[in-house]
């Protein structure tokens, strides 16, 4: 009798913990399902979610069956540097398929999605430093196509393992969209935190090295830093595209995301007027293999690949452009040393609103010089 009672109690406990784990699993699946629905809902011709497959869907909806002339594929340096309006004024139909944090490892999927729309050109944005960098960054959100490309090009085992791990982890959509959800929830959290009394004045904190610093105003000598930031355009400043979302980061930098896929940075921060040294040490072969793999993929789908060497803020050092042009299996448009004063940079990596217009005009001219 005692034994029976003990066995039945043990079974009941076994059922309970199995139920507990089952419910947790169900809860996580429901969260994933909710995110999937939300992401689908967010993607329309006028809005998108910042990941490669979602923005590819936005691109397809936005173009509405029209064959684009150029699709720009790249990272935040493409996203913030390309002004679609400038190209449209020059008679080009373009799409800005740049996504923050997406690098060469994410390009196979993006290049494929872009080439599937049969554009004349698919332009891949890369930086000069990436050619020689011995480490390819592990992507936070790889796709299966990216993973296949890594295996096909014989990438280092560490990168393969880490990317495979990321891909597996991202099957859980909550993990995949965690950054996006974080970005969405933070403003909500801040709105809820209602001040109950005005904040007292506190002495200014001394500026540490590496802290955000204001850029010199246009015309000011480089390297002389005024005490106050360059004026940041007020909300409502004219953009060359229709905004669907406006964000402001803690330092006051404004980001405007547009319905056409562009995103614009306003302001100028962290631009310290210092040169950034670079030493050309030849190619990092795995990087080159991956880049050429993407270019071949574009060509195989009937589009013409182009490589854009993105502007590099205050580059000091030299590089072998002839060797790059020889090794890369596509035309290379070199903007590494394109003259852009500090005031046109939002930070040392990205151009601001004014900078992107200058750069886009020059890029449109470079494309016009390519055979159509």
């Amino acid at each position, binding site marked *: 009798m005692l034994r029976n009672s003990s066995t039945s*109690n*043990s*079974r*009941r*406990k*076994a059922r*309970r*913990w199995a*139920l*507990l*784990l089952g*419910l*947790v699993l169900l*809860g*996580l699946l429901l*969260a994933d399902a909710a995110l999937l629905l939300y992401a689908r809902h967010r993607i329309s011709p006028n809005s998108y979610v910042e990941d490669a497959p979602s923005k590819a869907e936005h691109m397809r909806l936005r173009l509405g069956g029209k064959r684009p002339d150029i699709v720009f594929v790249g990272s935040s340096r493409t996203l913030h540097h390309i002004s679609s309006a400038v190209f449209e004024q020059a008679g080009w139909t373009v799409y800005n398929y740049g996504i923050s944090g997406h690098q060469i490892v994410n390009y196979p999927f993006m290049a494929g999605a872009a080439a599937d729309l049969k554009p004349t050109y698919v332009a891949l944005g890369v930086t000069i430093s990436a050619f020689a960098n011995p480490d390819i960054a592990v992507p936070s959100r790889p796709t299966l196509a990216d993973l296949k490309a890594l295996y096909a090009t014989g990438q280092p085992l560490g990168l393969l393992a880490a990317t495979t791990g990321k891909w597996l*982890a991202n099957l*859980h959509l*909550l*993990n995949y969209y*965690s950054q996006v*959800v*974080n970005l969405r*929830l933070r403003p909500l*959290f801040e709105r*809820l*935190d*209602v*001040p*109950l*009394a*005005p*904040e*007292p*004045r*506190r*002495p200014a*904190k001394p500026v540490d090295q590496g802290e955000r610093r204001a850029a010199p105003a246009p015309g000011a000598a480089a390297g002389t830093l005024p005490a106050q930031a360059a004026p940041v355009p007020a909300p409502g400043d004219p953009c060359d595209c229709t905004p669907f979302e406006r964000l402001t980061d803690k330092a006051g930098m404004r980001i405007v995301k547009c319905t056409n896929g562009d995103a614009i940075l306003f302001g100028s921060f962290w631009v310290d007027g210092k040169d950034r040294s670079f030493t050309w040490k030849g190619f990092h072969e795995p990087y080159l293999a991956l880049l050429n793999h993407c270019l071949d993929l574009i060509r195989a789908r009937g589009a013409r690949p182009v490589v854009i060497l993105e502007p590099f803020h205050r580059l000091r050092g030299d590089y072998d452009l002839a060797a790059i042009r020889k090794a890369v299996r596509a035309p290379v448009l070199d903007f590494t040393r394109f003259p852009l004063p500090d005031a046109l940079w939002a930070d040392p990596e990205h151009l601001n609103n004014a900078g992107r217009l200058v750069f886009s005009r020059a890029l449109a001219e470079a494309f016009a010089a390519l055979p159509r």
Partner: protein
Amino acid sequence: MYPLRCPSHLNPAANMLFNSYSFLFFFLPVAFAGYFLLNGKHLTKLSRLWLVSCSLFFYGWWDPGYLPLILLSIVANFALGTVIGIATEHKRKLLATGICLNVALLCYYKYTGFIVDNVNALLGADIQIAPIVLPLAISFFTFQQIAYLVDSARGETREYDFLNYALFVTFFPQLIAGPIVHHAEMMPQFRKLRNLVVDHANILQGLGLFTLGLAKKVLLADTFAIWANAGFAAPQGIGFAQAWTASLSYTLQLYFDFSGYMDMATGAALLFNIRLPRNFDSPYKSASLQDFWRRWHITLGRFLRSYVYIPLGGSRRGTPRLLGNLFATFLIGGIWHGAGWTFAIWGALHGLGLVVHRLWTMTGRRLPPLAARALTFLFVHCAWVVFRAQSADDALHVLSAMFLKAPSPAGLTLLPLAAILAGLAIVWGLPNAREAVENNKSSSLGATVALAGLACASLIALEIRNASEFLYFQF
């Protein structure tokens, strides 16, 4: 230099924390399945070896470079303990050698930088040393092994085999941040036959504790950390309300963080049928400072009492000596927490507090219970300000804003106020996690569903915020 506050050399993305998906969905299930699979086939030695290997893998995940150090420490201490146990002569010398070696190792990694900084400051010297990275958990495994050596000399260690000893030191639930387990309570558990089979009651209780710990860490501690960090980042000119917000947030953060970790450790150990000693028992409900140290980091208090306070003479040599021993024990306890003057001051404050409490007790007077609780909480809370501040100056800024500035709500916002009130209600009004899962109703359907909801909320919050580290990591 202040590992408690900033284990910055650790890359959070690469760490396998209890509150990380890699631990929850990969490491723990694999370790659990492997252990009981081997036990099911009666390969008990192999199953213990599996658990040691898993624990070393868990440790090495942070920095495999320190695996040789922990292995060397285990082998050397086990060998020394065995020799001390069987030696008939020179026991004390052998023991002193063992203790000195352990303390020297701890001092080298933990205090070299601090000592050099102070020598430079005092003598105006410019001694430069390469930065020394503190190996994870060195404070914990050093203390555990010192206890083992002392007990070997006392003849209190039994016939332990090396595998059991290695498992006692490395067992992953307690390896990183405690509790500071004692060989006598752990090693018999590894040999117990009943512990080698899956126990559904323990699994249910373990999952319950783990879930409550995860929720305390992710939902509560990490939230309070936002306001605590904001306040302590720039304490100069901090206002009255902001100082109270930051300090109370830290008091709550520290409790939820550390006790949450302990709940997770205890829960994870229970899955393997191992019962870790209780380390927290609603400490903020304490009615005296002595009571507080019976409820806060209980295993540290136990270690300090058995291996510092009593060897110093305890209460056997008259009142002045007793008071001196109390103070010295807590000063050592403070220094153990970290290489910095704030930790030493914090330890000294607690030592002084206990001295005053002892003197007060001798008068035979008693405070009303509510006043005693309030006073104890206030003292502990103020001492945490010193513990958390980057320097004694910073601590003074915060404390003076709390007590010397005119009370004003300026700078107060809704969320921290509501959260602090809720946090205080939890620590003062609700049973602690262990009491909750030991309650008869904890295995009811309603409790299971509630736990599942809490686990989901914690896992979702965890994903969104990304894993953050436990405060006690490098102690």
